[in-house]
């Protein structure tokens, strides 16, 4: 691994970790697409701040950008609270508007400045190693590692201080408010953190990857755990793994690095979606099949049980007419025979003592 490759991965890892932390809360608050809104709206802040200070590398640009992210959120909230349009529509109204204002300003007044919409959306992490922090002649590494490192630290501090407040106001906003917390304040603090993260990250990796890193790793984690704390931890793990493996995929295929990282995020989600033990697609299928078989076995057993006691049965068990197909019926019979709950004699089905026991405990016990 060349130092160059090391630097790119270092930046990617820090970006991934800082995105995943607030991302977990955004996903739980059903606000994933706010990231989209923020990541586009910050362009306006960057441009306005640039007009004010006239310097592309000024830290004021970051502040301006973060502020416009918060502005976007507030506007969305305002449109939303008027209850005239639905929530998702209010997102769709606000951010394209702010973004287009930025694009107009950019093309009208800042044509010669090196901010282009293309790099805003895609970013270029491959350039991360070239912009280095040099202090009194010493090369301290890529600047974006320091910028994002500070943002990561801030995110860590934010959730370790406000974990409890974030948790309760995400789970039950009215209750949080009734016990004296201020969910609205927490909401805006979280949004400010997300804005700042987006600003830092989008400079490093572009907004599509930022959205991918904020939304997808927490979604993967959500399907795999039942604890908020573990969900956050797992999100970070997923984010970092996607960043690193995405880098090597890009290296291998010789394609855009950010795109490849976002792609790997998607692949991770697909894998978790299909394979998660309980909530995954196959897990649910398996569970459904098991329930169907369970029910079929129970109905056959009950039917035999009733027949045994001389009660009227709707479908005679021997006819197996209670099942949707003869194949399925013989499968059920086969399973029950294997379990020793029924026996077959002279083409007729009989309950064994074990089968009778199952009827008593599982069906009648209900």
């Amino acid at each position: 691994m060349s130092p160059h490759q090391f630097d790119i991965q270092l930046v990617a890892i820090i970006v991934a970790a800082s995105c995943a932390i607030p991302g977990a809360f955004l996903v739980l608050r059903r606000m994933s697409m706010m990231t989209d809104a923020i990541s586009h709206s910050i362009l306006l802040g960057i441009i306005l701040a640039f007009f004010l200070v006239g310097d592309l590398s000024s830290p004021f640009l970051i502040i301006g950008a973060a502020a416009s992210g918060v502005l976007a959120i507030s506007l969305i909230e305002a449109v939303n609270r008027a209850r005239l349009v639905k929530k998702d529509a209010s997102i769709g109204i606000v951010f394209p508007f702010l973004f287009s204002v930025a694009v107009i300003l950019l093309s009208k007044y800042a044509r010669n400045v090196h901010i282009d919409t293309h790099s805003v959306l895609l970013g270029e992490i491959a350039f991360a190693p070239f912009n280095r922090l040099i202090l009194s002649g010493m090369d301290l590494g890529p600047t974006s590692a320091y910028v994002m490192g500070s943002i990561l630290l801030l995110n860590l501090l934010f959730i370790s201080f406000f974990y409890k407040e974030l948790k309760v106001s995400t789970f039950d906003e009215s209750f949080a408010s009734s016990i004296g917390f201020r969910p609205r304040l927490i909401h805006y603090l979280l949004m400010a953190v997300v804005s700042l993260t987006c600003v830092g990250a989008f400079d490093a990796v572009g907004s599509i990857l930022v959205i991918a890193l904020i939304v997808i790793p927490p979604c993967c984690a959500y399907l795999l755990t039942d604890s908020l704390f573990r969900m956050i931890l797992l999100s970070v793990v997923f984010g970092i793994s996607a960043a690193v493996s995405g880098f090597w995929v890009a290296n291998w295929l010789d394609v855009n690095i950010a795109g490849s990282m976002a792609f790997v995020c998607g692949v991770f989600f697909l894998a978790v979606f299909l394979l998660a033990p309980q909530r995954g697609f196959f897990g649910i299928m398996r569970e459904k099949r098991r329930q169907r078989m369970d029910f079929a076995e129970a109905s056959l057993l009950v039917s035999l049980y009733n027949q045994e006691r001389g009660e009227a049965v709707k479908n005679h068990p021997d006819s197996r007419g209670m099942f949707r197909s003869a194949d399925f019926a013989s499968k059920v019979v086969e399973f029950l025979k294997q379990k020793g709950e029924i026996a077959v004699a002279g083409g007729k089905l009989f309950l064994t003592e074990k089968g009778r026991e199952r009827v008593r405990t599982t069906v009648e016990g209900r």
Partner: protein
Amino acid sequence: MSGRGENPVAPAIRVTDLTVAYGDKTVLWDIDLEIPRGSMVAVVGPNGAGKTTLIKSIQGLVPRVAGVVSVHGRPYEKQRKEVSYVPQRGSVDWDFPTSVVDTVKMGTYGDLGWIRRPGKKEHEKALGALEKVDMLEFAQRQISQLSGGQQQRVFLARALVQSASVYLLDEPFQGVDATTEKAIVTILKELVAGGKTVLAVHHDLNTVSEYYERIALLNVGLVASGRVDEVFNSENLMKAYGGKTSFFPERKAARRAV
């Protein structure tokens, strides 16, 4: 009321001139309501009568157009810790990744205040409350695996750990099993016996006289409020429900007397 020995200085809750609107729709109109200390009060009224809004606006969770709410004689805002809130079960996402005991622990957050984290003491408190609602064995269970009745018990437990003196419950019996309903009523009656005040949104007119001693009949405005045996009659019900009820408390009382 007799038997309590003292003349209460101020009611548990006093609502004056409360008016709430959503957009151009008035949901609550000029409500004046007093809830005496140590009483168990049902809030009853048709759908859209503003029952949930009443519970929420008492706590300032929805903005008031007008009105003042005081708890034990002081403004609600200064008495927040005295009030414990059990929202509607359906108002939260039960797929949230957390366990039963952690959910109950949220009831201690108010006393902890900002930033301080719950520790062993809070954990013990939460377990104690779970024991009261007979859910101790579910402490480590993920909340998405609970039935409706169990969810309601968890919510009640979360309110119990707050050690408040006024309980506001929004439809605590909505979609719960009969055992849970009995268990919750028993706990609420114990609270009232211990001098606490309970105000609950209630739907089932059949059980009003069995569970509550007082009632507030609501339909945007306050139709009537007072002791169940005095104001829970068909005249007031007709006023509240606008003729859309076939429930007559007098008949039920007569049946019970037979």
